[in-house]
């Protein structure tokens, strides 16, 4: 038997470099890229790069040989080749000005068919849902794009259509769970069939001309080409799962790609938002399916009270509460507020929404409607205000959704300084830094105590200030007398104060000892001791444990033990320790910053108050003078 040569078997044959793959598939690099994107073929990281690259150690793009063989049987490879032929022939026609032939050829443009690839990449529907994040984010981005050289108008229109359909599904199924306003865009998280789907809607208006090195629209366009097909099929199934007709029918005035709407960006956007404010056509007459949910709850109740069950029950209750969060509320959105995310929010939690009909299309009712409960305003002040409704800033809606309850609106009133907007995506049980606002949210009791303590401290501060002000108001003589008195008091208190100082548990024992010695030196104590010695029982010395030393000993011990980590784990151990240290440092830094900020704020508040008081006092004095 022939002995196999080096690199004829094993890892070297499992991987194939991109160059070799191109040669094997007989495709250009561009076509290969397109094929890889559409088919979802990606390079692999070999276990031993050197072995996989037949001895060379430079970093190459390696594909799995089986993947490339799989591509070899793909039908769209032929379409890609047809494209090439088509381009050649049509260019020839154009060159010899054979326009009749050219027209005939253009009509026979080879269409690429991606349906089977969707099925193949996502064998189950759940797989498709799992991979929906990137798809949605990219399509939401593209749906706002103008017509570009590499992105035809049709593509961005299709993106718009599909994303609106998806949003309609989210609204109809009430599956939205978390929302977040980031500086990058609006994050939405929906739970669809148990899968968490997160997408970003960029802030308006995301398109900016980009240099070729920065962003290659060609690549993104290929992704979008696939994602549109995928989202289309996903939407189809989602709509049918809710017994909704697909494609959804909108009133003819809305979402028609008329010349006008394409020309005018503003009307283009407003059309899109208007489309969200319509109820969809149902194929069946059953209106709500909330009963189903109740049955689920009952089932859970029957199952008993293990911890998990209780937790699940709570979760289910919360979700059911969330789904009807805005039910019965009527919102009116002022025109300066970005409407799209708010409409999604309000509609998907059962609220009704409208806006200024004179500016944008698709409004349901007017501002003067007395039944409006909330008006969303994002400006410092408003000229005409209705007394029957709350004027809140848009962040209120987002915080309500993340808290899964209607928060009090007083912090979000018109022109109010907003509380920080926290991300709902961070794990509340993490061991890193948790800002006090989040802590307060997690533990409502903490808010009150925190507030109370704040109040108390403020009260104390106020008292002090009052005293100070009083002093200022006193005559000079009185002041002097008072000062003398206080000085005496301080002297007296200073002697007693030693004990108070000792209360600090973290103080070193040595210091304590010193102080004890000092005490011994004190004559009073000596006398006392003598008196005590006369008595039969002597007080024993308390054995004080030097906490610092104990801690140090423990640390030393731990360090020594840490040196016993097995050699093969040593690097990992070091890495873990380093990570832990950086995390701790980060936390420490954040805490410190917070402390300094709060101290600064308090100081500022105090000074402001004092100023105000002084002014008031001065004004009062003036008034009294005038009165005289």
């Amino acid at each position, binding site marked *: 038997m022939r002995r196999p040569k080096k690199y004829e078997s094993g890892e070297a044959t499992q991987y194939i470099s991109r160059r070799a793959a191109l040669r094997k598939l007989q495709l250009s690099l561009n076509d290969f890229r397109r094929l890889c*994107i559409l088919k979802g*073929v*990606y*390079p*692999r*990281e070999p276990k031993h790069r050197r072995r996989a690259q037949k001895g060379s150690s430079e970093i190459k793009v*390696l594909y*799995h040989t089986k993947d490339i063989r*799989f591509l070899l049987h793909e039908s769209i490879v032929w379409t890609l080749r047809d494209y090439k032929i088509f381009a050649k022939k049509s260019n020839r026609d154009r060159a010899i000005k054979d326009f009749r032939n050219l027209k005939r050829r253009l009509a026979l443009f080879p269409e690429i068919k991606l349906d089977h690839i*969707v099925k193949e990449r*996502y*064998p189950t*529907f759940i797989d498709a849902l*799992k991979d929906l*994040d*990137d798809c949605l984010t990219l399509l939401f*981005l593209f749906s706002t794009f103008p017509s570009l050289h590499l992105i035809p108008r049709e593509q961005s229109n*299709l993106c718009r259509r599909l994303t609106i359909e998806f949003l309609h599904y989210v609204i109809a199924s009430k599956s939205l769970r978390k929302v*977040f*306003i*980031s*500086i*990058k*865009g609006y994050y939405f998280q929906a739970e669809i*069939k148990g899968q968490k789907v*997160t997408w970003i809607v960029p*802030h*308006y208006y995301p*398109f*900016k001309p980009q240099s070729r090195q920065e962003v290659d629209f060609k*690549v*993104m366009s290929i*992704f979008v080409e696939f994602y549109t*097909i995928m989202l289309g099929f996903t939407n*189809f*199934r989602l709509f*049918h799962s809710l017994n909704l007709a697909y494609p959804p029918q909108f009133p003819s005035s809305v979402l028609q790609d008329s010349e006008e709407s394409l020309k005018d960006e503003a009307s283009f956007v407003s059309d899109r938002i208007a489309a969200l404010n319509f109820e969809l056509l149902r194929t069946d007459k059953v209106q709500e399916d909330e009963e189903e949910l109740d049955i689920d709850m009952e089932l859970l109740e029957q199952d008993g009270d293990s911890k998990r069950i209780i937790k699940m029950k709570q979760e289910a209750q919360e979700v059911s509460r969330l789904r009807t969060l805005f039910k019965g509320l009527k919102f009116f959105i002022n025109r300066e*507020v*970005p409407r799209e995310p708010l409409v999604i929010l309000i509609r998907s939690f059962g609220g009704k929404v409208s806006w200024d009909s004179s500016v944008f299309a698709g409004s349901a009712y007017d501002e003067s409607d007395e039944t409006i409960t909330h008006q969303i305003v*994002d400006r410092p002040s408003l000229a005409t205000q209705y007394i029957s409704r709350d004027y809140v*800033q848009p*962040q209120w809606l987002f915080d309500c959704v993340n808290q899964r309850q209607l928060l009090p609106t007083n912090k979000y009133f018109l022109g109010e*300084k907003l509380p*920080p*907007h*926290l*991300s709902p*995506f*961070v794990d509340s049980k993490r061991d890193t830094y948790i800002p006090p606002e989040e802590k307060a949210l997690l533990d409502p009791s903490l808010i009150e105590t925190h507030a109370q303590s704040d109040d108390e401290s403020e009260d104390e501060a106020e008292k002090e200030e009052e005293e100070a002000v009083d002093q200022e108001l006193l005559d000079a003589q009185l002041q002097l007398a008072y000062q003398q008195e206080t000085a005496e008091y301080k002297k007296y208190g200073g002697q007693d104060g030693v004990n108070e100082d000792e209360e600090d548990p973290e103080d070193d024992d040595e210091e304590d000892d010193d102080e004890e010695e000092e005490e011994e030196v004190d004559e009073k104590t000596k006398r006392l001791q003598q008196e005590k010695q006369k008595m039969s029982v002597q007080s024993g010395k308390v054995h004080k444990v030097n906490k610092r030393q104990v801690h140090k000993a423990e640390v*030393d011990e731990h360090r*020594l*033990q840490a*040196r016993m*980590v*097995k050699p093969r784990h040593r690097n990992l151990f070091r890495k873990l320790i380093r990570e832990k240290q950086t995390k701790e440092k*980060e936390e420490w830094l*954040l805490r410190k*910053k*917070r402390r300094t*900020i709060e101290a600064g704020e308090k100081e500022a508040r105090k000074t402001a108050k004092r100023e105000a008081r002084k002014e008031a006092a001065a004004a009062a004095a003036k008034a009294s003078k005038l009165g005289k």
Partner: protein
Amino acid sequence: MTKKLTLKRKGKDAEPTNEVATSSEASENEEEEEDLLQAVKDPGEDSTDDEGIDQEYHSDSSEELEFESDEEGNYLGRKQSSSAEDDEESSDEEEQGDESEDENEENDEDASTSNQIKSDEKPSSSSGTTKQGAPVKELPKRDSSKPEYQDSDTSDEEDIRNTVGNIPMHWYDEYKHIGYDWDAKKIVKPPQGDQIDEFLRKIEDPDFWRTVKDPLTGQDVRLTDEDIALIKRIVSGRIPNKDHEEYEPWIEWFTSEVEKMPIKNVPDHKRSFLPSVSEKKRVSRMVHALKMGWMKTTEEVQREKQAKRGPKFYMLWETDTGREHMRRIHDPVSAPKRDLPGHAESYNPPPEYLFDAKETKEWLKLKDEPHKRKLHFMPQKFRSLREVPAYSRFLRERFLRCLDLYLCPRAKRVKLNIDAEYLIPKLPSPRDLQPFPTVESMVYRGHTDLVRSVSVEPKGEYLVSGSDDKTVKIWEIATGRCIRTIETDEVVRCVAWCPNPKLSIIAVATGNRLLLVNPKVGDKVLVKKTDDLLAEAPSQDVIESERIKTAVQWSNAEDDEQEKGVRVVITHFKPIRQVTWHGRGDYLATVMPEGANRSALIHQLSKRRSQIPFSKSKGLIQFVLFHPVKPCFFVATQHNIRIYDLVKQELVKKLLTNSKWISGMSIHPKGDNLLVSTYDKKMLWFDLDLSTKPYQTMRLHRNAVRSVAFHLRYPLFASGSDDQAVIVSHGMVYNDLLQNPLIVPLKKLQTHEKRDEFGVLDVNWHPVQPWVFSTGADCTIRLYT
């Protein structure tokens, strides 16, 4: 052909010559004409080159030509050649001299004839009749005077002109001739007068102002009045041909008015009223096709196209989780999702998440290596939602994600999600492994240089130390008092107290000499006995080989040394590095690293005899050790440890340490485990029954480990290192062979001071108590209890 050409040429020249003929006498206002001449001649006079004139002349004639060719469009193409011949003709004229008058007349006639010929040839081109008028008028006059072709013949004969063609005439500047005539004879340049001649001519000749030099022939040409008139007309911007009438009445050949009655009034054919049968057939066929659905209206086609354009969606997945068997890519790895945003990404984050000045600076500094940044964006705070702008890097981020998805290599990796604590092996708490030394309880001071070595009396009352200050000191352990100081000649490398409690001997290695010292402490009887034992050398019954003799000499100590306590001196041939006793106290071994193949020696005290166990050196010997029970000898070279059987005289085992440089060894009192310290910060625990490779490698120290020592009774061992620390560890060896030794580091004792990179040099245990002694480079010996 030539004839025809000439004819044409003449025709072209016709008008000026005619004019000369007619108006030669009538030159009236001279002054005006002088100006004109200036205008014509100036360029020629300015430049000494003939070319200027030449070109000027050409341009004039060509303009004329153009004019004519405008008249009759078909002559445009010949313009160039004819203009060249035109020149020739004028030169011809000059040669003929005074008879120009007649000649001109002839020319005139010629021209008219040629014109007529042309008109005959192309009657259709009579649209330019206005121009034709003038020659036609002169026609009868010429007819009366001469027959038609007579003149032309003669003129052909007389035609002496330059044949060089249309070339720049300055090519002939250096020659005497100026070209060739028809007979290929040189045309000689006319004599050129100097300036005085010219001046004279200017004064004499009244026609000087109208004399022009013909560059082709070099002859002077007198311009006729006709010529001058023509030039005047050109200069003043009028049509050069004075006979041209601009305001001639317009003859309308084709009327623009629409006639009331059609010229051709034929009635329509009957076919035009009857429906076409073929068309009817075709339409009925189409209708049928439409009806059958074979054909579609354009609207339908358009609609279908519209519908076809977008993608078609249908129920691709029948169920949520049902999977249809399809070929997929091999071993699919789904791309990890992007991280979800934290508080810092909020548009209105808590204030501590915003960057302060320092963080901002750091963030901006890492512009070139963004992966090193702590956050990939700069947190920002906005007062209201309306103020939030579009994120400028959104597109780029999406693009990078796309690149990641199709270009980033993927592999399945197990991510370790463990706590660092988990990696620390589970060991019993040191508190359960007491007793072990925990605090420094005594410092023995007195040496003035670094203390190299320490050894404890077998009973545990006294301590001996050897130092670089050339002294050996004997201390009382309990009090820390130095009982005796023995001065030596050289640096004391090593001291070792004889482990036999019935003898009180200390082996001191100083320089080349090994001193056996009686410390004279403790039991007096014992001291006396030892003195007696060492006083006399036993009789030598064996003759030592030369090899040993040259290496070692035994001798009793001198008197002065006797007083100090030295009893026997064994002088080696090289400095001694280390000395160690056999457990029974009769044998001792010394190491001389420079001794090549005689670097390890074994001395027998009772017989005062030395042996060289190895005939060959297997490396630089660092340390030797006797096995406590078996007749085995451990030799540590730099890298390896060899175990020899002294009885069988063979190599038993070779231990592979895989370290750079061994510093010391210590054997467990039971003799199955060996502890090795190395200069590369490691300590190696060898289980001799188990393997030749270390059972455990410990990196407890941060610097080179100088020495290790096992306790004789307790399961403890200590190590001293250059990082000034003595580390006490628990090293339990079980009788059960299946159970591996348990090693637990217990305590780090770090009280020695650093001096010149050295920390602790030697450690040794108290034979009975769990106390450890350490010597350091800071000239002290310390006791930890």
